[in-house]
């Protein structure tokens, strides 16, 4: 394929100010073809992040914080501690199986310490009137600068060691780099005060708000103040929100019982395997044979194979649950979701973490909608996974999950508040059911797949040594399970319009309700297979430059497909509607 002719069809920057769509979106990059290409581009066409030095105005350069060295010294000591304890205190015989892991551990610690020291020596940064600049690198020098008005986020995070020394890792985002899941510029690490200062100077927030978020350990004290300052969220746009410097509005915080919803998962078994293996290796280093200990716990021979397997699965499951619970508690401790207002409009900010603290800021101007997923096993408990649909963020990035798994009603309330959709309440909108043909389509598929599997197994049983029990047991499981999923899938189908929001819901195992602003829809697609045509169904996909990029209303009544498309893409479809719609 040769592209012989290309015409950039985007209006020249500055010639046509953005009038449609969500507010304050700069014109998109004409050359950008990445899946989520809805990115701000500077009005003068300059890149967001520059690799050449801007004019020097004499501002002194600053170093990263010297306490990094202290943290690294401690890191070296800690990485050598297991070796010291094993060899000196416990008096383990130093054979190869013990020495190598300990040596690798110590070497890794020393390597990281040396790397950090080199970074401390070679890195300088400064904040001039126009630019944030950073010079770094030992062999390959790099000079990176971001124009201050392009800075969209300043996120701080700290690992345990860094927290002990009052250090913060600061990630500065200029919008563009978020697509590649990396920040425009990282300063690792500066002091807590310097991080707070950078945040305040770059995003123009008042000091109290910045202080309460950069230092999560003091969160309890500031929570009361921020909760009292909550402003009512209505249909007002981001510009109409509280003035610059207002105290953050708290939208949600962690409830301890959420840990129950987050500690049962398939990943628990994997985690248990990892924990068991790690424990076995560690204890083995100290000359303790965990395997023999487990074998001595009970008379496994008397219990028999099924009993032993059941006990193993149960133990692994329990270990996994505990592991996930601890993991959740440390990651989401002090979790808060807030809305703050800075120079560039409102920002949704989450702060969380017990040992490793993390703060993520999301530009509200990029918000296009939200998704509420309800996994099948959790639906009866009315628990859901909320996420936001936003441009410039990968769907796999943790930044799109603004809340952990939590009760559905709470998630709906928070998402509605986040979207400022209180008047229309799209997440609680009554959904239109899809026609019975959709149920028939799912049942036919379920039966077809199950019968094919049964037929293949029966044929194998007839021609090979496969026992006949296999095919009828498979059939007895597959047929009802398939039909059950078909019914569940049909019952989860739905769509609605609520004010400027289009709502679609689908999914048998993971029922996902997606709410998308119609102004953010960048195209519609109607698909209809021959089977769907016979059943009077059609699937409409609305595409957008955010989140998954496409959201589907599956198996609508065919005559309503065009109407749905027309409402999802106002004004774009009317010219293509049939003059006399067929009789329904």
């Amino acid at each position, binding site marked *: 394929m040769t592209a012989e002719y*290309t015409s950039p069809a985007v209006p020249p920057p500055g010639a046509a100010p*953005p009038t*449609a769509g969500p507010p304050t979106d700069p014109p*998109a990059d004409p050359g950008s073809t990445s899946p989520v290409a809805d990115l701000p581009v500077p009005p003068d066409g300059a890149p967001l992040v520059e690799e050449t030095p801007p004019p020097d105005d004499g501002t002194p350069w600053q170093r990263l914080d010297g306490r990094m060295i202290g943290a690294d010294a401690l890191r070296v000591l800690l990485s050598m501690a297991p070796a010291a304890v094993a060899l000196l205190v416990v008096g383990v015989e130093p054979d190869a199986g013990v020495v190598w892991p300990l040596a690798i551990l110590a070497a890794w610690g020393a390597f990281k310490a040396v790397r950090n020291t080199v970074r401390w020596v070679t890195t300088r940064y400064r904040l001039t009137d126009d630019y944030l600049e950073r010079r770094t690198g030992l062999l390959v020098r790099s000079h990176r600068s971001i124009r201050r008005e392009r800075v969209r986020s300043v996120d701080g995070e700290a690992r345990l060691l860094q927290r002990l020394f009052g250090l913060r890792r600061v990630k500065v985002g200029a919008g563009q780099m978020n697509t590649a899941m990396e920040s425009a510029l990282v300063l690792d690490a500066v002091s807590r005060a310097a991080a707070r200062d950078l945040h305040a100077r770059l995003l123009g927030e008042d000091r109290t708000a910045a202080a309460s978020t950069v230092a999560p350990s003091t969160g309890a004290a500031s929570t009361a103040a921020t909760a009292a300052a909550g402003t009512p969220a209505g249909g007002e746009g981001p510009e109409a929100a509280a003035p610059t410097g207002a105290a953050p509005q708290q939208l949600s915080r962690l409830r301890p019982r959420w840990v129950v919803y987050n500690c049962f998962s398939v990943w628990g078994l994997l985690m248990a395997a990892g924990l068991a293996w790690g424990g076995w290796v560690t204890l083995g280093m100290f000359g303790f044979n965990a395997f023999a200990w487990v074998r001595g716990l009970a008379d496994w021979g008397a219990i028999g194979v099924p009993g032993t397997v059941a006990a193993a699965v149960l133990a692994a499951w329990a270990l996994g649950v505990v592991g996930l619970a601890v993991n959740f508690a440390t990651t989401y401790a002090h979790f808060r979701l807030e809305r703050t207002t800075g120079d560039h409009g409102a920002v949704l900010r989450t702060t969380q973490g017990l040992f490793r603290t993390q703060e993520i800021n999301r530009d509200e101007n990029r918000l296009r909608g939200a998704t509420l997923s309800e996994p099948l096993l959790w639906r009866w408990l009315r628990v859901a996974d909320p996420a936001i649909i936003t441009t410039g963020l990968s769907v796999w990035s943790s930044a799109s999950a603004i809340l952990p798994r939590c009760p559905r009603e709470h998630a709906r309330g928070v998402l509605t508040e986040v979207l400022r959709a209180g008047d229309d309440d799209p997440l609680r909108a009554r959904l239109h059911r899809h026609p019975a043909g959709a149920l028939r389509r799912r049942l036919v598929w379920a039966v077809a797949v199950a019968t094919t599997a049964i037929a293949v197994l029966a044929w194998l049983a007839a021609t090979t040594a496969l026992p006949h029990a296999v095919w009828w047991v498979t059939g007895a499981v597959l047929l009802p399970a398939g039909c059950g999923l078909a019914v569940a899938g049909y019952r989860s189908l739905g769509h609605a319009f609520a004010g400027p929001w289009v709502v679609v819901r689908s999914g048998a195992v993971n029922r996902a309700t997606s709410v998308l602003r119609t102004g953010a829809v960048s195209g519609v697609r109607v698909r209809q297979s021959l089977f769907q045509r016979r059943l009077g169904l059609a699937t409409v996909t609305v595409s957008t430059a955010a989140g998954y990029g496409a959201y589907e209303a599956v198996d609508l009544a065919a005559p309503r497909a065009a109407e749905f498309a027309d409402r999802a893409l106002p004004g774009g479809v009317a010219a293509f509607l049939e003059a006399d719609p067929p009789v329904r």
Partner: protein
Amino acid sequence: MTSISLRPPRHRVQRRVVAWWTLRALCGTALAAAAPLAAWFLWESSRTWTGPVAVAVLALGLLYAAVTPSWRYAVHRWETTDEAVFVAAGWFVRDWRIAPISRIQTVDTSRGPIEQLLGIATLVVTTASAGGAVHVRGLAPDVARASAEQLAEITRRTPGDAT
């Protein structure tokens, strides 16, 4: 039988595109059949099952190459207005796509070697979404170029942020 209440787009494409689709289907069939055929020639003990597999792949591929190009041609239509680009495509699964002018990012024409030989071109309209670009295959080259220029011109006049 229930159809959706969209009227078909106004313009059909060049008949020559059927040849292009046929060629593409034949190339795909050849690639898919290459593996079992190679095994049949090189590995004698496998002939009992690679033979039937190769025959099945070839038969299905040839059927596909015989049926789908004219089916696609019958379905494939396109239209541009001052507000949107409207394309209908597909065969077993039919596919209607509407991209509003205000959301268009780039308009390209592209011609692969075989398309150049057949004297046809493809119009590619990109919007800012993961849904992918809208392709109109099988246009006469001058028509494709004129439409691309016209679309670019309309897009320049249309206020929008292409998101």
